[in-house]
């Protein structure tokens, strides 16, 4: 049997390991807290009197700073305002036939005839749906944000590559830029730059920079030593070495970064529409969602989706060479021909505007004008299927969400479950959990048994009823054993910061929502991933679905969730899951498909059944990859938290969103940093766990 599979059945003899002892102490503490919690309620809910007015302090500082530096930023804002308005004017001025011609030519050059046809169809839809000017507004923001992010990201990536000493600082900053929800830094930006679309532009540029930095770093780091040495031996000066050897070799990776940066910018431009004032497509979706006009929100959401897919395929086509080589159409579209077509498009634009200076050329009645019928039809559909969707929602709400939040002890009341738990039932539950723990202890080792015990307790008390001192100590202990003292201290510091700001309740709400979303994603996505790993057909069907889900700006996921399930926590759960389900599917499939073939053959040769092969050999071997998928899932879920606040949650995301509404920079920043803290903590824990597995 292979080593990882064998370690699954370690010795049945249970010796008390030193690592287990602190956990025993913690279990005792938990029991003590639970017994005392009626007498000392502060053990469960952190008392308001103990909070510190940190947010107010931050606000005082920001106010002071803002008044000093505001003129400079307002000036910068004004400086950016002009090109932004200009770009928008130009894009709106361009008649649609010219835009279509240019985009089709670019698509042909990028990835051939199929993308060109898709581009034409997508643009035609946008035109007919009546969202052309709004789409052009959005595009103009993207077109301005992307160069800023690209240049900045490339420069920072090069800096990180040439100065390894700066790298930890740089990577830390990148982690923060990507994990602090954009809503949180919209607030100080609003204070600095004043109200207006420039803030959206700057927020997008900030959010879109990290992928460029990371990919530039990765590309430059991965230049093979043979190639860089060959450059040096050819007698390159430092500058020649950089521009003639390193950058061209790293270029494919840098272009992948450009693709990701563009997609991030698009996503953030749409989220930033919440500030309003630019008549872009994100604003259309938001306002129609607020007015519960599902027809319009779907029409405009589809515009965003099509734009996202189009821009993604266009940029990725330039970044990655096709494995089968360029198609005939791609080779036909040489640089020269492309230049000619683009010039033709420009000439066409000028000609049209000169000949018909007063025509908008847009269809007078777009689909959006006729959506009354669509709205009715959709509402009818939702009403007809209400029994199904409501049933689904209530089922999940009462069986999963509520028990997790307030625990079985809290849910088992006549108002919710219609019955109360008798002492016998409580005892049965306790005995069942303990028995299962003993079984795990006997078959495996103490770790899964402990995990089950924690899960059993959490399910009984609920996230809200769990004593916070135990929670913090438990996470710190876990961090200490997995990753060492520094991460443990980081965890304690972060949780204490959240506590004293009175955000513990919001944190617990976030935790339980994310935990549930991640667990469901792992189960559903993992199952789909396993299926896809075994069936070519499923894999072929899932791939474009995953691609599409991953290209969508986060905003779009709210639309169907809201339409079918109305405002509420369950809707947020669905939206989060839609966004976070792709990594488990992808990573499980990839992990299983790339398990070393010789190991699988050896196990099969021993006579293992397919199920045995899967659980004893393939999954354990694929575990590091699956863990990476888990990491991505958690990151996705946490980043969706702030967006999901729009459909009604009571978590940290909501705290950020409320702060945005009140322009409360201090609270927004602290709540945003709390989400970032959770993300970074989870990321470091999982990375340490994967690294620990690799070394032992």
């Amino acid at each position: 049997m292979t080593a990882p599979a064998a370690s699954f059945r370690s010795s049945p003899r249970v010796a008390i390991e030193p690592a287990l002892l602190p956990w025993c102490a913690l279990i005792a503490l938990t029991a003590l807290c639970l017994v005392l919690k009626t007498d000392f309620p502060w053990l469960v809910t952190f008392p308001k009197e103990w909070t510190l007015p940190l947010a107010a302090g931050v606000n005082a500082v920001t106010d002071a700073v803002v008044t000093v530096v505001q003129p400079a930023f307002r000036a910068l804002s004004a400086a950016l305002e002009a090109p932004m308005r200009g770009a928008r004017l130009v894009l709106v001025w361009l008649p649609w036939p010219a835009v279509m011609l240019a985009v089709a030519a670019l698509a042909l050059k990028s990835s051939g005839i199929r993308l060109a046809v898709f581009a034409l169809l997508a643009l035609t839809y946008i035109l007919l749906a009546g969202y052309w000017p709004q789409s052009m507004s959005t595009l103009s923001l993207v077109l301005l944000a992307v160069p800023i992010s690209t240049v900045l990201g490339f420069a920072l990536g090069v800096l990180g590559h040439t100065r390894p000493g700066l790298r930890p600082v740089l990577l830390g900053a990148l982690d923060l830029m990507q994990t602090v929800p954009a809503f949180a830094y919209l607030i100080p930006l609003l204070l600095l730059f004043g109200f207006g679309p420039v803030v959206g532009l700057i927020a997008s540029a900030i959010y879109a920079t990290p992928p460029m930095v990371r990919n530039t770093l990765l590309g430059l780091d991965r230049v093979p030593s043979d190639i860089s040495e060959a450059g040096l031996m050819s007698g390159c000066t430092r500058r020649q070495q950089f521009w003639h050897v390193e950058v061209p070799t790293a270029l494919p990776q840098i272009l992948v970064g450009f693709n990701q940066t563009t997609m991030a910018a698009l996503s953030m431009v749409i989220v930033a529409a919440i500030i309003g004032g630019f008549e872009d497509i994100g604003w259309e979706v938001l306002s129609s969602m607020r007015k519960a006009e599902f027809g319009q929100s779907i029409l405009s959401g589809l515009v965003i989706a099509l734009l996202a897919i189009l821009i993604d395929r266009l940029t990725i086509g330039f970044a990655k060479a096709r494995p089968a080589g360029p198609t005939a159409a791609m080779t036909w579209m040489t640089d020269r021909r492309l230049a000619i077509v683009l010039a033709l498009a420009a000439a066409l634009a000028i000609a049209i505007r000169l000949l018909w200076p007063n025509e908008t050329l847009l269809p007078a009645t777009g689909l959006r004008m006729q959506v009354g019928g669509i709205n009715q039809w959709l509402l009818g559909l939702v009403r007809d299927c209400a029994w199904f969707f409501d049933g689904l929602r209530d089922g999940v709400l009462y069986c999963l969400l509520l028990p997790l939040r307030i625990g079985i002890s809290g849910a088992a009341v006549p108002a919710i479950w219609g019955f109360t738990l008798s002492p016998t039932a409580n005892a049965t539950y306790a005995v069942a959990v303990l028995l299962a723990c003993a079984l795990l202890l006997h078959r495996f080792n103490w770790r899964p048994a402990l995990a089950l015990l924690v899960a059993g307790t959490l399910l009984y008390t609920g996230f809200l009823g769990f004593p916070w001192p135990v929670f913090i100590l438990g996470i710190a202990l876990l961090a200490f054993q997995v990753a060492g003292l520094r991460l443990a201290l980081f965890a304690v510091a972060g949780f204490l910061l959240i506590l004293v700001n009175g955000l513990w309740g919001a944190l617990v709400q976030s935790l339980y929502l994310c935990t549930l979303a991640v667990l469901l994603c792992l189960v559903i996505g993992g199952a789909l991933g396993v299926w896809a790993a075994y069936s070519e057909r499923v894999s072929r069907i899932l791939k474009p679905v995953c691609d599409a889900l991953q290209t969508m700006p986060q905003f779009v996921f709210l639309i169907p969730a809201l339409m079918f399930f109305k405002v509420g926590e369950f809707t947020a759960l669905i939206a989060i899951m839609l966004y976070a389900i792709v990594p488990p599917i992808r990573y499980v499939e990839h992990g299983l498909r790339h398990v070393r073939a010789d190991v699988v053959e050896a196990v099969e040769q021993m006579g293992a059944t397919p199920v045995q092969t899967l659980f004893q050999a393939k999954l354990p071997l694929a575990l590091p990859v699956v863990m990476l998928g888990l990491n991505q899932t958690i990151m996705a879920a946490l980043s969706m938290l702030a967006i999901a606040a729009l459909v009604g949650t009571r978590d940290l995301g909501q705290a950020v969103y409320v702060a945005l509404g009140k322009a409360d920079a201090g609270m927004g920043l602290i709540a945003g940093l709390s989400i970032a803290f959770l993300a970074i903590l989870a990321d470091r824990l999982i990375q340490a766990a994967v690294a620990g597995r690799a070394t032992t």
Partner: protein
Amino acid sequence: MTAAPIKLACRNVWKVYGRRPAYYFDSRGYIIEPDALAERLRSEAHLPAVVDATFEVATGEIFVIMGLSGSGKSTLVRCLSRLVEPSAGEILLDGQDLLKATGKELIELRRHAMGMVFQNFGLLPHLTILGNVAFPLKIQGRPEKEREARAREMIALVGLEGREASFPHQLSGGQQQRVGIARSLAVGPELWFLDEPFSALDPLIRRQMQDEFLRLQRMLKKTIVFITHDMAEAFRLADRLAIMRAGKIVQIGRPADIVLNPADDYVAQFTEDMPLLRVIKAGDLATSLNGSAVPEESVAAGASLEELIPRLASGVRAFSVPGEGAGPPALLTAGAVLAVLEREQTRRTRS
């Protein structure tokens, strides 16, 4: 020994990886005992990758450095071109200390005096074959016409005419290494470093490339430092070879010296499987005539003993081996050949 002038000399070169390698080499005036220092470095968490390497390469010579992976041979060749900065020692190129060269001088040296071939080819993926071969010339700022003409010439030299417009990934491994060779020769360097150039290739292709390499060397007469872990390759190509172990050069000599007089058990074990009759050439065993008559049968100094066996069987007792240039011929007796044959027999039965 050949009488050709020394092109490249390497004296007491060390390369140490660790926290503060300079600490061990900062004092002057006393003689370093290499083994003791290496031992001390290892015990103090430093890695001596190259230990006190000293050798000389004559103009036009193929000098092979052979060792297992991790023996420091690749680090040593990188010290010679200063891709890796040595911790201590001297490297003399035409009598000038390379380690004292400034950054600018070093770039000039690399542009004109050295060429290098890499194990994984090191071709630039975004350039065509023509662009890759012309790359060193482009870096020097030569006009496009000139560098293209030179590159085409080089491509023809390695037999890749017609593939100028292809990209590296469209070529087989052997073809890619031909491009690497062409590129390293484009500036016409006198000193040619080859770092395991054929190790990434299939055995059959490797053999072809070795023949190709020898053909090129007969034409070009470069001074060559050739790194390999393949013993057969080393013995086949080398004029002289150095065997490295754990950073240290354990023996330097002509192939015949090494198989006949291994410096220690390690070298003996290492070379055990090399067929003596194929490695040893007639010239290696020839002695001076000492006044006796010149034998009628003559044999070239470069002929292996294996080739002589049929003639020995037909009863020839002695050969004359023409000396270099106008020197007097030397004498090779059948007894000397048979002694080697006997030694090979005992080696075989022992193992």
